[in-house]
């Protein structure tokens, strides 16, 4: 071993980076083992090919993993997330490194944990060992394996019956092009607790391509209530991969909202597994793609237990030459009687060259269930446009109003006003 050099060495994605990340964070041995095992899975798993069913409509042959650098330290020059909203906790992540963590003292005293995953692995090994990778194992996909091998991120733990009054917000940014980050989030809400969690990824548009490969695991315990919001506003230079999976237990309630605005490319697998009876979830999605953006959503409502309810609504607007694929599956496992499951995907096309494909699927292995799905892809209704223009709105303002109205059922459910306003501003900018 060489002496530590002052200048951090430039590292690509590889086994060496895995050990370096683990050492740099001072993690316990078991955590490093876990990473190395995941690296093995990553290496053993082939890159997705256009012939794989899930990747038939989305081509990632342009992605060159070896081109990215795994940053050895965070960049100093970043726009911090500023907010006047009431928050119970806040984490700032820069180039994959947690640089700031703050949590309401009262909540900390009551056992709530908000920490970087690396710290948590040392301080709460029994919790992290139990839950990390329990919802999304490395075997889930090549990208999940990569995120497990190199991931850094946030651990949130809410003990039994604790109510977290205001949202906890995590803001993650990138300061330069050419790098790869692996955001990893683990949320554990013990029985009868309550928490709202907002995760945001943002950056400027940079010249050089970057990569973000993330995994979110959220466990909602019996009778607990979790609200999770993920907002992706990377610059147009980022390849974004996310596996977001929620596991919800008996009589719990979970609401997720996944917002996609940024990136060059985004592939999101968003899943909820309803594993305890009486569990109920709402899965919302909003995306607005412009220029050459490519989005691909894969959703799963996995009904493992009886008497559960799931309702999914994803709405997208596309302009310029953007393209989106939505493929949603409702899966009702044997024995999951009295399942109520709904799935809707709607797409509004603002230009002739934009394109959206919507592929709903049902896989039902129980006989006493209520399921339905609906999908639509179409341009702005010319009669609506005329109606608004006949009141004096320009075509652009009328279109903007129709788009705002289209998204309203989703934007109105963002739990922080400041975040809602920024999102509205981002949508307005896309309408320019």
């Amino acid at each position: 071993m060489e002496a530590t050099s002052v200048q951090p060495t430039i590292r690509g994605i590889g086994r060496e980076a895995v050990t370096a990340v683990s050492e740099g964070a001072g993690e316990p041995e078991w955590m490093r083992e876990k990473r190395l095992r995941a690296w093995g899975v990553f290496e053993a798993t082939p890159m997705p090919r256009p012939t794989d069913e899930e990747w038939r409509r989305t081509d990632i042959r342009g992605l060159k993993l070896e081109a990215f650098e795994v940053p050895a330290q965070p960049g100093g020059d970043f726009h911090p997330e500023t907010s006047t909203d009431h928050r119970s906790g806040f984490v700032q992540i820069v180039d994959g490194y947690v640089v700031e963590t703050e949590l309401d003292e009262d909540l900390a005293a009551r056992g709530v944990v908000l920490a970087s995953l690396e710290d948590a692995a040392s301080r709460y090994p029994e919790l992290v060992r139990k839950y990390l990778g329990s919802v999304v194992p490395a075997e889930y996909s090549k990208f999940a394996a990569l995120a497990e091998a190199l991931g850094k991120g946030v651990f949130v733990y809410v003990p039994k019956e604790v109510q977290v009054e205001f949202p906890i917000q995590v803001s993650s940014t990138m300061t330069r092009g050419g790098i790869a980050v692996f955001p990893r989030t683990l949320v554990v809400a013990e029985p009868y607790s309550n928490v709202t969690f907002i995760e945001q990824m943002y950056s400027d548009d940079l010249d050089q391509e970057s990569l973000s490969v993330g995994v979110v695991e959220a466990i909602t315990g019996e009778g607990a209530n979790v609200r999770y919001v993920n907002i992706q506003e990377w610059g147009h230079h980022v390849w974004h991969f996310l596996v977001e999976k929620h596991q919800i237990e008996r009589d719990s309630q979970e609401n997720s909202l996944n917002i996609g605005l940024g990136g060059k490319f985004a592939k999101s697998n968003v899943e909820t597994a309803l594993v305890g009876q009486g569990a109920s979830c709402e899965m919302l999605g909003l995306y607005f793609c412009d220029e050459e953006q490519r989005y691909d959503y894969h959703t799963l409502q996995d009904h493992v237990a009886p008497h559960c309810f799931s309702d999914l609504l994803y709405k997208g607007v596309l302009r310029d030459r953007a393209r989106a694929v939505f493929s949603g599956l409702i899966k009702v496992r044997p024995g999951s009687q009295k399942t109520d499951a709904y799935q809707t995907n709607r797409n509004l096309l603002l230009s002739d060259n934009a394109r959206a494909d919507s592929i709903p699927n049902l896989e039902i292995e129980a006989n006493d269930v209520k399921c339905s799905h609906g999908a639509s892809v179409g341009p702005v209704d010319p009669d609506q446009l005329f109606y608004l223009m006949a009141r004096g709105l320009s075509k652009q303002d009328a279109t903007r109003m129709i788009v705002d109205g289209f998204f309203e059922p989703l934007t109105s459910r963002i739990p922080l006003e400041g975040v809602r306003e920024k999102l509205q501003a981002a949508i307005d900018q896309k309408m320019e």
Partner: protein
Amino acid sequence: MEKSLVIRNLHVNVAEEDKEILRGLDLELERGKVHAIMGPNGSGKSTLSYALAGHPGYEVTEGEVLFEGENILELGPDERAQRGIFLAFQYPMAIPGVSVQNFLRTAINSIRRARGEQDIRVPEFRRVLNEKMDLLRVDRGFASRYLNEGFSGGEKKRAEILQLAMLDPKLAILDETDSGLDIDALRVVSNGVNALRSPERTFLIITHYQRILNYVKPDYVHVLVDGRIVTSGGPELALELESKGYDWVRQEFAVPEAV
């Protein structure tokens, strides 16, 4: 006599079907007066109103339309609205997710900006909106509902007149605003229209029935059959039409068959 609107030899096709609906229509509207247009189903009344408002699906192939002396046929629907033309739709569109008040404020400001005026201040907007809602006996909660979404037929028509009241146009075209209204609603809407009459504002009321004209007294009545105005007169013409029917008009005024 000051003209608000002059239509000469107007020919209009439904763009999609290339079918001529208005076939040389002439009409002059006097400023500050109430003009009524009556005519059988399919005669082209809504087509006329859409053509005046600038609907892209209705193509003007011949003729001219002067509004306050300006040829408006080259203007987009937004520019016509900004100049003061308002159409109360026979079938208003629902705009999901957009509240009545948000929509109204945006519309008012669009018109103001086009005229180089300042945006309306929020307190003033609220005050005027409440005033107009009271005039039309509309519940205050109405303002935060989504525009026309889930509105009953009567609510949609009231919402159209509320928009008319808020946007303060020079020419208001009402396309069958009376249809689908019960007696009480008709009275409220008619009172609203009467309250909005002024020497600066011209009304063109399209209707099938004498009913609304009992409340909103027209100065002139025009009869539209097969894409043309075939006769015009005073309020008594509406009564005559109601008793004798359109066959009488066809015979009396020798309306040529459509080709």
